[in-house]
């Protein structure tokens, strides 16, 4: 096949070159002045703090890798629609939890975690798993433990469970039933935690023979003022940062027995009245699929905010608010274009905000000034991922 294909080309070149040269075979036999180029393939550096990753969305598969400094596209990790990407903390691999049918939209369902090497983006292996939740836009359905040894993939069948993957051995380890809970939180040395429909946080100790599940007391209302799925975890502080639809910001100290901090209102932190779920009341509310980003070095939370009534929690933003979590103060507000629904922030000393929305136009913003440094068309609708320290 390859051989005859090469001949196909050669004959074509021959025929065509003869044509364009006037058909003198002698002329062609003479050496051609310009040397031919070789085809080659790019390799990538290990993921850098200035990079960001945007999943393209519901129609085109792929997660695009960008450099926030240049705004340039560096490459693409193969993340089929509805798949979840997680990073190897050592920077050696990208992991993609995905579900593929043998005949595209039908046939046999296959759930697996694909391991790509971060330099060549080549498939190293597929780790089969029993199943996973099919949903878009979430960052906490597939998490990797801080030591990089374990992967946790949320499954919903619609019975709720978590698939534990041994990333060192690259094989599925076990499934753990987790009734009434979702959204996985790293819990170093313990396993993972999750949020539950009764308003509690569940913690799952996975290391024992049988997993042990404990719950905190309920601390939020899952149906009247839910905590957004796309919360943020700070490894250094072992702290989870959560935000609710009304704008209540709370933190949790993650351990075998997590403790939940006192929530505060982002609106009150900005000097206005707190968000109210009551109908007709207009206020500034957080919104979007990925409505907040945590800059860990400075413990600053950046939140996508819009004017509206309650139950507009998916609306795109008109402003970005910077919240100093230590002082519980909104330290900056600035307007943003494009009604973004997803936000992330690079974790380096001079952080860059990345926002995108339904129009798939990403913007790289300097949070110090609110200035747009790069505008990138066709970047994708998110979620957005960065390298965490």
């Amino acid at each position, binding site marked *: 096949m390859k051989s005859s294909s090469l001949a196909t080309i050669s004959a074509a070149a021959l025929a065509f070159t003869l044509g364009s040269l006037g058909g003198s075979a002698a002329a062609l036999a003479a050496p051609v002045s310009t040397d031919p180029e070789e085809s080659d393939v790019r390799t990538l550096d290990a993921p850098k703090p200035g990079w960001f990753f945007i999943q393209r969305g519901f*129609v085109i598969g792929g997660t695009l890798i960008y450099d926030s400094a240049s705004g340039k596209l560096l490459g693409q990790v193969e993340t089929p629609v509805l798949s979840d990407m997680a990073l190897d903390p050592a920077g050696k691999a990208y992991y993609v939890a995905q*579900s593929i*049918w043998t005949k595209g939209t039908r046939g046999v369902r296959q759930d697996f975690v694909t391991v790509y090497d971060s330099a060549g983006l080549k498939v190293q292996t597929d780790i089969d798993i029993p199943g996973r939740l099919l949903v878009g836009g979430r960052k906490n359905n597939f998490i990797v433990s801080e030591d990089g040894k374990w992967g946790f993939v949320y499954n919903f*069948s619609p019975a*709720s469970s978590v698939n534990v993957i041994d990333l060192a051995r690259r094989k599925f380890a076990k499934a753990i039933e987790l*009734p*009434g809970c*979702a*959204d996985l939180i790293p819990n170093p040395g313990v396993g993972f935690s999750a949020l539950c429909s009764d308003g509690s946080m569940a913690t799952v100790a996975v290391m024992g023979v049988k997993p042990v599940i404990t719950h905190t007391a309920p601390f939020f209302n899952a*149906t009247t003022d839910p905590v957004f799925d796309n919360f943020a975890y700070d490894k250094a502080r072992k702290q989870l940062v959560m935000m609710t639809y009304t704008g209540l910001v709370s933190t949790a100290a993650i351990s075998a027995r997590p403790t939940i901090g006192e929530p505060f209102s982002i609106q009150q932190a900005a000097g206005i009245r707190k968000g109210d779920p009551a109908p007709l009341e207009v206020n500034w509310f957080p919104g979007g699929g990925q409505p907040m980003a945590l800059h860990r070095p400075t413990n600053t939370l950046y939140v996508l905010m819009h004017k509206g009534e309650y139950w507009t929690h998916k609306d795109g933003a008109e402003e970005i608010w910077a919240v100093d979590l230590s002082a519980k103060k909104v330290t900056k507000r600035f307007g943003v274009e494009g009604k973004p629904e997803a936000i992330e922030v690079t974790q380096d000393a001079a952080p860059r905000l990345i926002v995108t929305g339904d129009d798939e136009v990403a913007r790289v913003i300097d949070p110090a000034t609110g200035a747009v440094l790069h505008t990138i068309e066709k970047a994708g609708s998110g979620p957005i991922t960065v390298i965490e320290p």
Partner: protein
Amino acid sequence: MKTFDPDGLGEKLLRRFAGGTSRRGMLARLGTAIVAAPVFPLLPVSRAEAAKPDRSPEAKTIFARNAQTSDDTKCDYWRYCAIDGSLCSCCGGGIHTCPAGAEPSPVSWVGTCINPEDGKAYLIAYRDCCGKAYCAKCDCNNTDRETQLYTPQLNNDIIWCFGTTSMEYHCSTAVLVGAA
């Protein structure tokens, strides 16, 4: 909660969600369900909510104030208060009808929407039609009382194609379950 009586209030709703499945069949299913019971932790919350005086904003969301009852191919049709996805009404199907070749999911997320004509709240089952490539017409994303993944039956981002031969998402319907 695990001891509530399936022959009581539960079973009536169950039959509606099953779309006319026989009572016997439903009870059998429920039997299994009580064992798995993934969402029973929900109930105390809801009961708690139930006590609150200000718990019924359905009539007053911005969606409900602007909803219409005449055109089910528009995102502001009253039943779509919590729908997310392509309207099957725009894809060769209808408000409770899958396009040819698609398969309705036996389960779904739910919404409680106000019919502007009688001002009453109705329970709507947003059943996905599954097994065909994404229709990508009349995409809507309404969020009245829509919640997050830990309360999945009220979340409209999940691909609700369970128990269908293929889980490929095509479009979404808005099936009237009954008065809420």
